[in-house]
């Protein structure tokens, strides 16, 4: 179980998150996949700290968790706004501003 295995797992997780981000219709699902990408980053932090020593990785992971949580909270607030405006949370509803 070396560092490269974990990195592979993390990047797999990251790319799944990106895929979900691009294809899902519902905004909530998009939030979910962003969350996934952030967790992949946390995984790398912890792995680095485990295999390359030093405690800064783990500290960083905890802070990152806090940050992403705050972000998702705001994201959900925006979803509610979208729903209140269009009574649905599909992402293509928010496309009046263009060109």
């Amino acid at each position, binding site marked *: 179980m070396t560092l490269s295995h974990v*990195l592979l797992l*993390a990047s797999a997780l*990251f790319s799944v*998150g990106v895929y979900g*981000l691009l294809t899902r219709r519902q*905004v909530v699902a*998009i*939030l979910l996949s*962003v969350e996934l*990408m*952030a967790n*992949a*980053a*946390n995984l*790398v*932090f912890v*792995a*680095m*700290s485990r295999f*390359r*020593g*030093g405690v*800064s*990785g783990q*500290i*960083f992971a905890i*802070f*990152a968790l806090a*940050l*992403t949580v*705050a*972000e*998702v909270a*705001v*994201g959900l*607030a*925006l*979803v509610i*706004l*979208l729903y*209140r*405006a*269009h009574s649905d949370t599909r992402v293509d509803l*928010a*496309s*009046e*501003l*263009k060109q």
Partner: protein
Amino acid sequence: MKELATLWLPLAVSALAVVALLVDLMLPVPPPGGARSKTPAPVVGWVVILGLAALFCVSFFHETNSGTAMHGAYRASYFATYLQRLFLMGGLLGALGGLDDVAKRTPHRQGEFWLMLLSSLAGMMILPGARDLLLIVVAFELMGIPLYIMAAYSKTDAEPTGAGVAPRGWASEAGLKMYLVGATSTAITLFGLALLTGMQGTTKLDLLAATPLSPLAALGLVFVLGGVGYKIGMVPFHMWVPDTYQGASTPFVAFLSVAPKAAGMSVLTSIFLFGLGAHKDVWLPPMAIIAFLSMGVGNLLALPQTDLRRLLGYSGIAQMGYVLVALAANDAMGLGMVLFFLTAYLFTNLGAFLVVHTAAEAGGGYTFASLSGLHRRSPGLALSLLMFLLSLAGIPFVIGFWAKLYVFLAAWRAGLIGLVISGIVLAVMGLFYYLRVLQAAYMTDEGDLPTPQPPPALQLAIGLCVLAVVGLGLWPRPLIEASTRAGVEMMAPLQAAQAQAAVKLTQR
């Protein structure tokens, strides 16, 4: 105690935020359902404005240019003080501009907007001095998240179009788009940082460049560049800019288009110039490409625009392209000129947006038609718009001319000849849409739009901006000397260190 002394300015801003919250609490809450007769006076707004103005003045008397805090994570310097003053001025002008718009949009929940503004400002305060990647990320997020809220902040969605029909949910759409791109960028930044700090073994900026960059670290570096770039509106990450500028309330966009970009630039400087200055050959080519793309796409897509907010949005992207050119110079004069350009850009773009907002308030929406006959309706406003456009276009005797000239000169001195030439050519393409706005304001006179009467606070904000743009244009010497001092002070030790590092590398 000594640590608190070095951190007194960011702490003061947070304190101001708390005070604003308290004042908001004490205000009488209108009876539920009762006749909401007239909109209450923007008391909280004035408190914030006075607070920021006081802090800005005090920052000149009580300068803390040295000393560290948070165990070395934060180090004060003249560079930090210069940027902090810049953010304070940005916040002050943004607040002045937005005072009446916020009161109009959400008369009874004004406090919340000011709280968001101040917390974002607090985040910005810390950024320039941050020497630790962790602190940088936290401060960056502290600045970013409130912006999503402020962008989506308008319950009544009163889009001041003359047509009277209020399109539903423009502001919320703007906020949502900004949020989606922002969230993705944050995730990418975190992933990049994870790789970078992991491989380099430290999160301290000063030690970051100790070991040469492994491919994985380079990958992380690039992810960080992309992630942070979103805030500045660099080209591949700029798609949210025009829609958000069109959707959100314009005084907020005036603030959004200036202060956060400056903060983004300070993050880039910290990470790339201070942290990884030695490994320039890794991050310079991508930054040069991004700079070229920003200038190109910014100017090109601004040409066909009819909505003034989108046009100024794209123009902002192009202006940031010029800053990146100076940043890529990676030397003392380059950094100095980045600061100088950001100051010039702050006053110019903020003023331009406020003038466009005032003209739109008087009817005619945000299209060119709203400006027609402006010279007759209110000569003062037209003259200030003229000054801002000249500054954006880089025509003499306004600050924009010196800014653009020295940005390109610094880059040319550092040898980025190709980039500068393409910059100059693309800038000329930009002149076309600046002159077209000028043409709408000065030469066309159809329609009988009423004369715009901006509220006193807005007038003060525009007045300050014009004063700065013309004053500094005629007498740029103090500002140039200040920005050069900041640049030299930060880069001199680094360049010495890099010189030793280079020598060491060659010996081994």
